[in-house]
């Protein structure tokens, strides 16, 4: 059978640990860069960066960037951009706050309505981009102005949130159902071990599947290295989380669960579904996608609906964290999300990018932010440094591609 004969012939061509790493230099490079940045700031902050509670606040403070970056990376892969997400965070956050505080709506229902508003806004923007043909840049630039304006009209000065349950979303941890195992939260340790097992299983499963259909799997040594590095990283994070918190509660923050679930779902959509394939196809070569019978308009439309939904999730998280709706909420969030995508290896020209990459990109920005603010560096300087990091990351990407040619 061809499957069995093809495999060894192909292995000799592509095999080798170093060759595989070199081929995926961008992906491994960004993870390496994140590790280096973490180590550097750990030293510069005298070990404060990776203290359990400081790590939890790193996650809680950057959850919104990750949530927005999930949608943004898909939008950018399809060669669009969304500049309106920051304004949407203010607008939808404002609606959510007004529902709870002025209309007396239950906080759960208020969240549902907010998500629905996000979907409707997504439909609105998707319509203009996909069916009228206005470039995403223009449509969402208009959206940025429209929704910031509406947010100001709705919210006025500010609307403080009184619901403790709602405020708990951004502050609380998963309940300590398994008790304390020494100084550690039991549930967090179980979740951490489960994550390591799931990662190892997915990597091994990928190899077996590739071999079964006669494709070249990555070298076994690389798979092992990946699993070991991931196990160490997840293990360390689990240790930090399990020992985080205060006298009342601790362990896994709810925000991390929300972000984790969204990352898993959207990564599945982007890598395993037909829709995900079409997103890459539209970004890689829109004309070819059209000629292949892909409904490119529907792909564009659906992407903006997803982006609207994720903006609403970010709005709810942000509102919970700030405990007050203001018209200025979410200012420049779109820029953070876009920067996270590009630092995480998304191609400027579209067609290339991953959600895990964008998450790593978001963490690079987050760690720099957090590290510099612990060191007491002025926010203006923090901004400058973030800008330089973005420029540097994309420059390295573009130059490495040029070299390959």
């Amino acid at each position, binding site marked *: 059978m061809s499957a069995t004969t093809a495999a060894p012939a192909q292995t000799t061509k592509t095999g080798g640990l170093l060759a595989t790493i070199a081929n995926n230099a961008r992906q491994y490079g960004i993870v390496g860069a994140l590790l280096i940045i973490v180590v550097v700031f750990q030293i510069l902050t005298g070990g404060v960066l990776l203290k359990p509670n400081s790590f939890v606040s790193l996650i809680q403070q950057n959850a919104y960037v990750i949530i927005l970056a999930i949608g943004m990376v898909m939008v950018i892969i399809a060669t669009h951009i969304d500049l309106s997400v920051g304004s949407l965070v203010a607008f939808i956050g404002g609606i959510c706050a007004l529902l709870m505080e002025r209309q007396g709506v239950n906080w759960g229902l208020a969240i549902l309505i907010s998500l629905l508003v996000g979907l409707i806004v997504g439909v609105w923007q998707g319509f203009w981009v996909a069916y009228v043909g206005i470039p995403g840049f223009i449509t969402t630039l208009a959206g940025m102005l429209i929704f910031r304006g509406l947010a100001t009209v709705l919210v006025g000065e500010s609307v403080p949130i009184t619901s403790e349950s709602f405020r708990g979303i951004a502050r609380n941890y998963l309940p300590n159902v398994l008790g304390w195992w020494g100084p550690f939260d039991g549930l967090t340790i179980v979740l951490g071990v489960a994550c390591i097992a799931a990662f190892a299983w997915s990597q091994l499963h990928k190899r077996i599947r590739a071999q079964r259909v006669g*494709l070249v799997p990555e070298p076994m040594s690389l798979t092992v290295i990946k699993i070991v590095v991931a196990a160490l990283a997840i293990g360390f994070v689990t240790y930090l989380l399990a020992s985080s918190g205060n006298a009342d509660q601790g362990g896994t923050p709810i925000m991390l669960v929300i972000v984790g679930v969204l990352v898993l779902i959207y990564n599945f959509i982007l890598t395993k579904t*037909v829709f995900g*394939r079409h997103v890459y196809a539209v970004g890689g070569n829109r004309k070819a996608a059209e000629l292949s019978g892909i409904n490119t308009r529907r792909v564009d439309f659906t992407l903006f609906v997803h982006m609207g939904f994720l903006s609403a999730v970010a709005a709810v998280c942000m509102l919970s964290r700030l405990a007050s709706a203001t018209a200025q909420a979410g200012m420049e969030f779109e820029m953070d999300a876009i920067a996270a995508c590009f630092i995480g290896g998304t191609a400027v020209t579209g067609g290339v990018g991953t959600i895990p990459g964008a998450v790593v990109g978001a963490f690079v920005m987050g760690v720099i932010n957090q590290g510099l603010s612990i060191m007491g560096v002025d926010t203006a300087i923090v901004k400058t440094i973030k800008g330089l990091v973005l420029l540097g990351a994309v420059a390295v990407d573009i130059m490495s591609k040029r070299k390959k040619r």
Partner: protein
Amino acid sequence: MNDMTPLLEIKDVSKRFEYVEALKSVNLTIGRREVVALVGDNGAGKSTLVKIIAGLCQPTSGGLVVRGEPVRIGDVRDANALGIVSVFQGNELCENLNVAANLFLGRELRTGCGIRDENAMVVRARAVLDTLSSSIQVGRPVASLSVGQRRIIAIAKTLLSEPDLVVLDEPTDSLSVMQTAEVLEYTRRLRAEGRSVIMVCHDLPDVFAVADRIAVLRQGRIIAVHETCETSYEQILAEMAGIVDEDADGRGDESDGVPAGGAVGYRIRVGTSRRLIERRGEQSGLPV
């Protein structure tokens, strides 16, 4: 459905762009199991005609009839649903995806609920590439393939959807001699499998190598349709250039052509050549 019903009839199709009349009352019939080449100088209207068939643009007037039924081909998906697939030069593939992904683009195999069946696609893609005597690996990114290999992938895509009519736009353009041979062989194979092919081609030797009939377009009109075995390079070239009309070519008496509707101001010879008889004979099982 009657097997003698033509696969595709182009009826009185005109296409007007803002200032240009790209097609003027074009009539052409594509039968089953035949390769029809469209030739003509730049701007003759070949591309516009195949775009209309592929669903990429709409005729200003006139229409298409597929298997005896008048149809409206609004987009590529409509065309695919009618069994018409197209390969357009230069726009065939997504560079960021691998070979298997490109082969199945737009008709991905699924396990259900919109989830792709990657295994099945890899296995099937390899099977199709094996039949093409091609050494292309299905897991390779398309960006790493040569022009010829890409063309093969683009054409192999058509095999997967089992179309009745394949539209090839400049299939041999910028290919090496060997690659051209492979593409031409592939075109013959489509015909042998019972499919029809419309190919737009600049290269007359390639046209003469595979086409059963050659339609010459000039200034938006079909000025002649020849059985390949009854015409010559010189005649086609002259017609493309507009030097010769049908009475001056001196070949009018040789063909047993009958005038057929279509090109305004010209006579189209629709011969019943020996070749066609042979093929019909094969099809119907009659002795030739």
